[in-house]
């Protein structure tokens, strides 16, 4: 199988939402000594970008997007460990989290997927994340960016608490903070001192790429 065929296989696996094909493609890439970073970018990420565009155009919906994301991660699990550490040195580190008290994490997971596809190293803190953990991990993980999400009104104040905590810890100046979720707004982002409010995952990635 040629390099071109392997890259196409990875891309098509993601578009079709077939994790086993992505695993096969990733193994073939490694066996054929294809640069793992190229396999990711020209294969898996290319496929995820196609799916992202189709989702934005309402040609596919959440079930397909989630399967494509799962497929991308199946390939990434095999390819990421093969990348030399030096090649990752300049890659920006971003974390995603749904704040404490909220367990709605589909939006956050789409953001995680798109950030990964956008070339960020993503640390997913998960859902219902205690504010102190967000503050502590931002520092210990040396984050460049933090994407916070909530879908519920009562938990929005957790976003402000996280930002206040980052200021108190002295790490705020090192990290860009964006927020998302239906009840949030640009005004709320400004009110709590966040750097940006993202309307969707694509906007989050575009904004962070612009910032960095």
């Amino acid at each position, binding site marked *: 199988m040629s390099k071109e065929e392997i890259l196409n296989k990875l891309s098509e696996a993601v578009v079709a939402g077939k994790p086993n094909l992505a695993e096969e493609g990733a193994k073939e890439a490694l066996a054929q000594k294809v640069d793992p970073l190229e396999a990711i970018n020209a294969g898996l990420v290319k496929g995820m970008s196609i799916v992202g565009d189709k989702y934005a155009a309402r040609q596919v919906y*959440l079930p397909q997007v*989630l*399967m494509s994301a799962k497929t991308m991660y199946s390939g990434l699990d095999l390819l990421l460990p093969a990348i030399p550490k030096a090649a990752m040195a300049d890659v920006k580190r971003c974390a995603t989290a749904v704040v404490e008290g909220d*367990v*709605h994490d*589909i939006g956050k997971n789409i953001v995680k997927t798109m950030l990964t596809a956008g070339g960020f190293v993503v640390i997913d803190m998960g859902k219902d994340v205690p504010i102190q953990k967000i503050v502590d991990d931002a520092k210990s993980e040396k984050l460049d960016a933090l994407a916070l999400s909530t879908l519920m*009104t*009562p938990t929005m104040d957790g976003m402000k608490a996280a930002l206040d905590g980052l200021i108190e810890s002295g790490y705020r100046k090192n990290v860009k903070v964006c927020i998302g979720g239906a009840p949030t*707004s640009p005004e*709320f982002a400004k009110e709590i001192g966040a750097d940006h409010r993202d309307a969707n995952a694509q906007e989050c990635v575009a904004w962070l790429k612009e910032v960095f």
Partner: protein
Amino acid sequence: MTEMSHIDRVMAALTNEPGDRLPVYPIACGVNRRFVNGGISYRDWAHDPKLYAQAFIEGQKVFDYDFAIGLMDLSVMAGDLGAHVRMDEQNTPFVDQHIVNSVEDYEKFEVPDITKGRSAVLLEGTKLYCDALKNQVITSGFIEGPLLALSQSAGAERLFMDMFTNPSAVHRALKVMTDYDIEMVKGFAKTGCAGLCWDYLWGNYSCLGDAEYEEFEGCKKYAIGLNELTIKEGMAVAIHNCADLPHLDTQIKKFAPAIYSMAYYPLIPGSPSASSVIEGGYTDKTLVGGQVDPQLFIRAPAEKVTQVVKDLCQEVKTALCKRGLNSPKYCIASGCEVPPDTHTKTENIKAFVDAGKQYGKMNA
């Protein structure tokens, strides 16, 4: 026109007759517990039918709404199906441990005994507030649709992927959810509520396309059949969908509910505003309710709430007039529930209702 009673006003809107003003209903449910015994916890409210009912009765006394609709929370069915529900003192309860961890788990669902658990609290509480308020306002129960009940039990992300990879397993579980809903509809019919409000949240283009929604909820064996049963059992069908891009053609034109409650997200392209909903003909046969941002009840001063409601009344009345509708076919409502937490400003609920009464007059 002379001032109408709450019931006459809503009935005028439902039957395309002229009315004195637009109906007003901030979806104030859990927040009303603050008027019971000086304020009770969400846990107590959601576990005791008398306290549950008393909140709606007290809320009606304080705010003088046009409806009483009994939303408890969206984890009632999942909890009774076996999922673990986290009950914070003052926060909306939510499922924190789903019960589908493999495809085989979809086979394990069974319809619970609705005379026990929070299903029973919901039904008994609904009967109590309906008995107390039925001569004052239009009353309605509130129930989760089958796809919502399953997503709350299985986890939405897992469910969506399984729709794609294991649709037959999902359908088997949806059959159980529908059977559970059928039992609940029959239970609600005994409470005396005039309507039953279905939460069909996943009819939403951010999540599902027409084909997926049709297959997994919008068809005869699920939502359409349940809507028909609701009517057969003597209740009007209402639908609540606070998602950003609701399937209006399916959920209003095809399902033809008496009432449809929806939200508006101005920052999301394509999210339908009140005037666009009216212009699109969705209020021709259905009383649509919306779309004030629930955030205002926490974050805005009362003056801002008044202004927002005033602007919405003007937008709605202008659009109704352009559409040639002289019936008050739009209810001034919040797009989703008034946040039930303790930071909600009750003076903003009053400002909302008062502004709706003042600026919603049809001849003003």
